[in-house]
């Protein structure tokens, strides 16, 4: 009797002792996630907005933690890419050495190209929050996942819709002038537009490139005066977009429409607040949230309560982090290969972007699409597609 009782007691103790490492070792208390953005340098504003969005998402996720890992929290490692690709890549090296399970970043296409490449060396999962250059997801990297659309999709949507709007108005516009920033994002977008537009019967009269930062658009606006296009298409980052449109206003250069494709300030509440007159009527084809989903309004309120503007950088980074958290949850581990696998098979649908359920092919979310917005009566309203339409488009802005 005693021997059997002893045996049972001892085997119970042994069994529980054996079980502890399975519970204690495989279940991390916290998972390191790198959040990398250009928070200083020429792109500082956008980088900081991205960081804010990402941190809000981390806050929301950590309320309950990663369920399948016993409520493990996400531990953030912040990185500053300093608006330079090589520094972004260096930050990835640091994050890898610090033992990050995954990285979300890095806003700018040129920087993302470098960071995803650096992360691929270590099979470090890298969710691209904005970075629209298509090359980012066309290099066969197994660790790179982009939730939002690339610029080919944006350019095609923009041009097709321009044609629809123009035709509906009796084809008042024919000539186009494109103004783009010099890096990968602007140049790529401009090239795509120059190729697509003539196919629909538009005359691309001039394509002008400018540096980041550019503080004087007088010469470019003078050229615009001389070329006299019906439509001006800017593709650049916030500061330059704002200055270009303001210079156009100063010089009284008024095209029939300002039709932005991934315009840095075109669908920006900050620009709208600071320069309502200059912003009025601008159309943008850009990243936007589903206006019918109440969660977007809630997040907007939270961001505005912090004194920030609800710009695309915020909600793109927010949803990118939520996508990652969902993948970590389904991977049930902080192992990089497992997370990459979970991302690849992701069907994440619990978001307020107009993308539907997620489906990655070669790292690109197939459902991702930009929305067309226009600044109407002092607010930014979705005009296309009809499913999300909040107001009728005004095209052309002036005859």
């Amino acid at each position, binding site marked *: 009797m005693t021997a059997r009782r002893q045996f049972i007691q001892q085997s119970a103790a042994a069994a529980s002792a054996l079980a502890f490492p399975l519970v204690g070792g495989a279940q991390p208390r916290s998972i390191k996630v790198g959040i990398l953005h250009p928070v200083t340098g020429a792109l500082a504003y956008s980088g900081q907005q991205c960081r804010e969005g990402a941190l809000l998402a981390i806050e929301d996720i950590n309320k309950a933690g990663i369920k399948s890992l016993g409520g493990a929290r996400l531990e953030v490692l912040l990185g500053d890419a300093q608006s330079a690709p090589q520094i972004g890549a260096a930050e990835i090296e640091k994050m890898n050495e610090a033992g990050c399970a995954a990285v979300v970043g890095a806003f700018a296409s040129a920087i993302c190209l470098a960071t995803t490449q650096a992360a691929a060396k270590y099979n470090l999962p890298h969710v691209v929050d904005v970075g629209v250059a298509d090359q980012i997801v066309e290099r066969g990297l197994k660790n790179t996942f982009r939730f939002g659309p690339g610029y080919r999709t944006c350019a095609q949507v923009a041009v097709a819709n321009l044609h629809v709007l123009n035709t509906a108005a009796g084809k008042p516009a024919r000539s186009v002038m494109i103004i783009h920033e010099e890096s990968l994002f602007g140049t790529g977008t401009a090239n795509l537009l120059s190729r697509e537009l003539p196919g629909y019967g538009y005359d691309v009269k001039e394509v002008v490139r400018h540096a980041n930062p550019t*503080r*004087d658009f007088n010469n470019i606006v003078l050229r615009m005066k001389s070329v006299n296009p019906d439509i001006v298409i800017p593709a650049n980052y916030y500061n330059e977009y704002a200055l270009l449109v303001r210079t156009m*206003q100063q010089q009284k250069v008024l095209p029939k429409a300002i039709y932005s494709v991934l315009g840095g300030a075109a669908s920006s509440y900050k620009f709208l607040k600071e320069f309502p007159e200059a912003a009025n009527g601008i159309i943008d084809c850009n990243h936007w949230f589903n206006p019918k989903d109440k969660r977007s309004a809630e997040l907007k309120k939270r961001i505005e309560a912090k004194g920030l503007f609800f710009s695309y950088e915020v909600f793109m980074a927010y949803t990118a982090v939520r996508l990652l958290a969902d993948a970590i949850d389904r991977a049930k581990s902080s192992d990089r290969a497992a997370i990459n696998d979970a991302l690849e098979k992701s069907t994440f649908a619990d978001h307020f972007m107009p993308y539907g359920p997620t489906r990655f092919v070669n790292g690109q979310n197939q459902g991702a699409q930009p929305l067309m917005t226009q600044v109407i009566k002092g607010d930014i309203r979705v005009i296309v597609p009809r499913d999300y339409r909040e107001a009728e488009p005004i095209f052309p802005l002036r005859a």
Partner: protein
Amino acid sequence: MLEFGILFPSVLNGLTTGAVYALVALGLTLIYGVLHIINFAHGASLMLAMYGVYLLKTRLGIDPYLALPIVVAAMFALGYALQRVIINRASHGRDENILLVTLGLSIVMENLALIFFKSDTRSIETAYTLTTVAIGPANIALAKLVAFAGALAASALLIWIVARTHLGRAIRAVAREKQGARLMGIDVDHVYAMSFGIGLACLGAAACFLLPAYYVNPQVGGGFVLVAFTIVVLGGMGSFAGALLGGLLIGVVESLGGLFLGESLGQIGIFLIFIGVLLFRPQGLFGARA
């Protein structure tokens, strides 16, 4: 593109920018004329002055034009102190050392700015940021017109100081013959420091005129010092009239170049002029020194 309605505004824009370049170049040419060194810290000093104007506007709400006396006085004091305390001591009287000391100063200044301000590009918004004035077919930003007038006035003041005042005579004497001036009882060290101070004070004025229409980041000085150097060579090293005229000319060349060739390639005009002047007329337009 060759119509008057396009060329005229571009030329006017160029003149307004050129006037500010001229002011920067005047400081440089004064320092060269007296101390016989190219001040490599000129660009970095301009950058510091611009940050000063930026802080005065954003922290204390002082308009850049109203801040003119404050910034000019502060930059003068900085220049005087730098020359008296650092440059003079560190160079042990040898010209080549002074060059290196100013280079070192520029590196220190740039990196101090990087520490305190990060590399973000900052600009200020004023009530008149969007105001333009119509001159014929051109709409010129008010800030640029004020910069033009202000820079010309400051240049005229500087030229008057050097030509008519007691200090100016001492400066000219030291510039021409240092030992002789010392024998005549002129405190050469004091004159050196005053010249450096005035040179930096010009930068203070230029900063007040620049910031409403431009931006500031720790690297902004480099672009200006390169252009200022070209202007000094173009005008003739040590010649004030040359720096003024050269500045206006370079401003117009830059603007027209940017109009026809795009902003980056447009700068080529400036450097072609620089090379041309060195090849064909090395003493500059108003060659003061052989």
